[in-house]
């Protein structure tokens, strides 16, 4: 009997571009897990597949647009959100998701992120947070913990990071949650929920990046980072947490709070309509 068995079908064949496999992600990377949750949610959404659109920016997470077998747009660095906004407003019947990384969405695209949340435009944002720039080889970014080592912070990161749920809550998003890569069921359920939730929604997914972030910060591999999540993740009852406790530092033995932080009904953005 062959030690390798090849299956003919994958449950996500309908929504993945199997001719694009294998993907570019490193062993131990968490992006594929999150993409699987996204694909599963699309399948279960009951929304016709042709109405699902995904827009990505640049970076490892940005490659998701290229692997999803739906209409997909791989745009410029940081601009996925305004591009997606144009798509959605020009054709409101589309379900437009933005799948990208922390560097793309929060650093170079940070201004678009907060303004889209402020407007409460109907976009479903899934943000992979792996605490660094992975594709370019492990540079520090706006989510890198203070003191962490990266190729551009060889003496430790002198800056303080963003706390994404706090940022998005303050900016006005209708829905904000955070999960780790271990929480596949919760991620999928939240994505499904956001498909039914009008307005701007934001799901942060903490992902191992063993090659970019882990290697410089004494995290052996993806599995070890997953184990850190297993040990430290604490579920928060809806939004019941002080902001500073939401800060994450994998290198410290302190809780990582996950869960739903915002679920509210601010009026979603609608272009002005006047009677003709």
């Amino acid at each position, binding site marked *: 009997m062959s030690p390798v068995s090849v299956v003919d079908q994958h449950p996500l064949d309908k929504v993945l*571009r199997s001719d*694009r496999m294998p993907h570019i992600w490193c062993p131990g990377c968490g992006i594929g897990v999150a993409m699987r949750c996204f694909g599963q949610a699309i399948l279960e959404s009951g929304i016709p*597949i*042709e*109405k699902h*659109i995904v*827009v990505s920016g640049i970076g490892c997470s940005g490659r998701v*647009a*290229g692997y999803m*077998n*739906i*209409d*997909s*747009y*791989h*745009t*410029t660095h*940081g*601009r996925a*959100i*305004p*591009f*997606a*906004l*144009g*798509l*959605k*407003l*020009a*054709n409101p*019947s*589309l379900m437009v998701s933005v799948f990208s990384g922390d560097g793309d969405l929060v650093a170079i695209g940070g*201004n*678009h992120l907060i*303004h889209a949340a402020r407007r409460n435009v109907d976009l479903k944002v899934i943000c992979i947070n792996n605490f660094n720039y992975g594709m370019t080889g492990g540079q520090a970014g706006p989510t890198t913990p203070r003191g962490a080592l990266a190729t551009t912070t060889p003496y430790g990161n002198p800056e303080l990071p963003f706390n994404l749920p706090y940022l998005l809550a303050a900016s006005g998003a209708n829905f904000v949650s955070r999960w780790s890569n271990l929480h596949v069921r919760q991620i999928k359920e939240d994505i499904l929920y956001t498909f039914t939730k009008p307005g701007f929604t934001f799901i942060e997914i903490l992902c191992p990046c063993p090659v970019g972030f882990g290697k410089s910060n004494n995290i052996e591999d993806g599995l070890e980072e997953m184990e850190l999540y297993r040990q430290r993740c604490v579920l928060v009852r809806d939004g019941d947490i002080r902001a500073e406790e939401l800060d994450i530092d994998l290198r410290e033995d302190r809780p990582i709070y996950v869960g739903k932080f915002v679920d509210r009904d601010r009026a979603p953005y609608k*272009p*002005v*309509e*006047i009677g*003709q």
Partner: protein
Amino acid sequence: MTIKSVLTGKHFMHGDHACAEGALAAGCRFFGGYPITPSTEIGEHLARRMPEVGGVFIQMEDELGSMSAILGASAAGARSMTATSGPGLSLMLENIGLGVMLELPSVIVDVQRGSPSTGLPTMPGQSDVMQARWGSHGDYEIVAYSPWSPQEMFDLTVLSFNIADRYRTPVLLLADEVVGHMVERVVIPPADQIERWERKRPQNPPNGRFDPFKVIGEDLVPPMVHAGEGYRIHYTGLTHDEHGYPDMSADTHHNLVVRLVEKVRRNASQIIRTEEHSLEDARIVVVSFGCTARSARRAVRLARQQGIPAGLLRLVSIWPFPEGLLGELANQVDEFIVAEMNLGQIRLEVERVVRRPVKGIHHAGGAMIPPEPILHAIQEAAQ
């Protein structure tokens, strides 16, 4: 009263407003922009008018977002536009490059002011000409028109949408503060007389494999699929093959970039617009564009009254550059003079094509070049 998208009739109209009305008449139904003098009136006018015609006006957080948003709207099937001035164009260039690469029709209005940097916000300039041509990174061709009147702010905006859709490319309307803020007679034709060239669209409904970047036909323009139509297309700013998939090979890259460039070059005769004044027997030709061409026309008339065989070639389109026409003119013309409100951007282009030194009448911007220095240069050339 029904509210019209085409304001058919004779108007005394502001140039920026004429541009906005041209967009509506052309069927533009998405405007994303950021306020910047001297283009702001375009956005303000559309903020009021877009809802009247069922379109979308959105004031974005910056010009990066504006350009990205109009590309997204275009991908969803809308005719879309933004308007800005030099500092904003600098920011838009990133995603103008994306528009070129994804072949997304879009119209970018640049009402030029004195530059560089913040420069002269309320005063005219014509110094974004080379930025428009080369500002985004990489090899590409761009289309740019240069209106010299409020009437052309209307007409060339309509044309810009048609060219953008026909060739699947961003098109720039390189206006200037003088033309943008000028109030003049504008005639808007009946709606059924406004030309509309539609995007080339796929022949078959979605069924099996579809190659969104496969070219059928000599014009090198692939048919365009919009979001949500079921073709399951992938668009990427990465080098891509005919299927739209990233392909990191030198051959694919070369073929793609050459096609994108050739798409404009091969169709240049359909895109280029020029206007000739007294050129038939001219031995001295002034080349000019935008507001400066108004002074140049005056200078040429005065020179003719003095018996000097002068003529004007007005560049209604600036890019692609009318190399063929200028090359032919070079055979009959003794002297070329370029008048422009910059320090030689088009003069060097003309020199490149006519292969001889060209006299430039230049000013860095802030005030129109009057007819006198142009006339003086014509008189000197005639001696």
